[in-house]
């Protein structure tokens, strides 16, 4: 069995201690050390799943398994890519073609003007920029709260840290819907400030910061960093701020990458909350505006607007694919 020789590396990869590249040069490294791409590729060819290499050599296994994988690939293309390609096609197809022959490919030519109309006449550009603002602010606040909070709870550890940690984790068990009405009233009449936050981005940013899942992720990551580094820095005279800025923050790039993915994607996805607190179309993000456009504008322009709203998340996904997929896998691991 050739696979036996690879065992040691397998074990090394599964050790729970996260060793992080201190320079954080690879933002794709999340939590556990990863072999480089080449070594991974070499390893994966010897890696095995349910079917052993011996199974793969047997025709009675290879043919049905290979066939089912090809069928699976075809289904994934139809289900995963199909609707998105259809949207891309319809965004530049005249309304009548989309209505009469929805599946046909450009029977009466391409209508690029749809995109321009949606962008500048329907003014999707306003909501597009709003979505960017919502995502940017939520991201900044979530990273700030998670990094400082995680650092304080895991590294500084004041005596009351366990109480705060318990209170933060406790909110994981409270479904978001419980917060809906009281949070709305808090935004309507915020304490101390005096003026309503309705129709300001703060109404979305501030509640987004209270994300216990982020704190949990970052705290666990910090908990697993080797304590010796902190001790050494303290011996060299680094204070709490210096330790945070020069040591902990550079080391926590991988986990902050995960937090960033969640923060930006969630800001892009959110609907109900911005619908409640951002009533003015001038500050609404795309998700809130799109449903109201449906009846107001022509179908082809409307579909173009839908396509424009999907572009950024898809590009982000294609660029940071490995980070996305690892974050998604991590989500399950942590929730478990």
């Amino acid at each position: 069995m050739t696979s036996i020789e690879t065992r040691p590396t397998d074990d090394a990869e599964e050790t729970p201690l996260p060793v992080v590249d201190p320079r954080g040069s690879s933002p794709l490294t999340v939590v556990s050390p990863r072999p480089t791409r080449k070594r991974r590729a070499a390893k994966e060819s010897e890696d095995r799943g349910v079917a052993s290499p011996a199974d793969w050599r047997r025709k009675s296994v290879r043919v049905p398994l290979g066939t089912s994988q090809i069928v699976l690939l075809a289904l994934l293309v139809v289900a995963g890519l199909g609707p998105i390609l259809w949207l891309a096609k319809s965004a530049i197809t005249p309304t009548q073609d989309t209505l009469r022959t929805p599946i046909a490919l450009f029977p009466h030519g391409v209508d690029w003007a749809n995109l321009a109309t949606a962008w500048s006449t329907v003014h999707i550009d306003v909501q597009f920029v709003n979505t960017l603002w919502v995502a940017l602010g939520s991201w900044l606040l979530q990273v700030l709260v998670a990094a400082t909070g995680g650092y304080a709870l895991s590294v500084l550890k004041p005596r009351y840290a366990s109480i705060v940690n318990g209170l933060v984790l406790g909110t994981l068990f409270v479904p978001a819907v419980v917060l809906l009405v009281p949070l709305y009233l808090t935004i309507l009449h915020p304490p101390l400030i005096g003026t309503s936050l309705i129709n300001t981005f703060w109404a979305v940013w501030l509640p987004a910061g209270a994300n216990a899942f982020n704190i949990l992720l970052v705290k666990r990551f910090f908990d697993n960093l080797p304590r010796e580094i902190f001790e050494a820095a303290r011996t060299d005279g680094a204070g709490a701020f210096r330790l945070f800025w020069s040591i902990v923050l550079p080391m926590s790039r991988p986990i902050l990458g995960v937090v960033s993915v969640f923060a930006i994607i969630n800001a892009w996805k959110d609907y109900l909350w911005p619908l409640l607190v951002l009533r003015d179309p001038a500050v609404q993000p795309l998700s809130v505006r799109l449903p109201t456009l449906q009846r107001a504008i022509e179908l082809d322009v409307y579909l173009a607007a839908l396509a424009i709203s999907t572009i950024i998340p898809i590009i982000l996904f294609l660029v940071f694919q490995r980070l996305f997929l690892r974050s998604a896998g991590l989500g399950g691991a942590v929730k478990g």
Partner: protein
Amino acid sequence: MTTIAKAPPSTRVRQRRTPMTWVRGGGLSNLVFLLPLLFIFGAFSWWPIVQAVVMSFQKTNLVTPALFVGWDNFARVLHDPLFFTAIKNTGYFALLALIFGYPVPLVVAVLMSEVRKWKGIFSALAYLPVVVPPVVAVLLWKFFYDASPTGVFNVVLSWFGIGPQPWIQSAASAMPSLVLEATWAAAGGTIIIYLAALTGVAPELYDAAEVDGASIWRKIWHVTLPQLRGVLLVTLILQIIGTSQVFLEPFLFTGGGPANSTVTILQLIYRYAFQNSLGGNYGAATALSIMLAVFLAVLSWVYFKATKAWSTN
């Protein structure tokens, strides 16, 4: 004498905890780093949770002062004829989502974990629907569900000789249509979670099973699935918790119709609080959300008990 005199000052310093010693000990910087968390969670998580519990026992409309009314809000919700419709619909949604959405990601993930080449393309394709903003996905599918013979799905069905379906237009097929879209949108995330869990299955177990002469099916049944049972339970509970709070699909697809066949619990909460011509009935809305939260907390508790029992076995 001098040796004795040396000892007391240090103990005296420890006893006198002035603000300055607290600052020098790092107490202030600790607090500075915790401040963002304490402020944000205090104002936008902890305080609203407390308020929710209080408000569920109050009659409040923001105009007149809040009035404690005991269990009246809960009684009101329980007497609402829509309450049981909403529970029934949410339960139906959750059940259908389990039937559609629970086995599919598992089968896909097990098959995908056997892929030798282009594994990345498989997982990217599977995850792509998750990246599409949910509102866009629902609006797109709403168009796909066009009930006319030239609707996208009806055209596809006609290729197989199946007549046009009413999809979200009829009370009978509306909910399954919603679940179909929700499954499409969510399956990718579950697939990736299963894939991550599958890489954690020790190859030694398969080797050992092979020594005993196990076939592929027996390996899946006796090695893979038992190894995944922890993750399977987690995704099951997470799915039930998620589907109990379904809002977007019924709200944007059907608005609760036709004939209230897709009104869910969250939609009822929304209607109480924000779609009320008499001003928001915040008491009823929070009472219903507290009831839902208690139900979900019981579920999480059962889940923890179950995982404990499983892990000790």
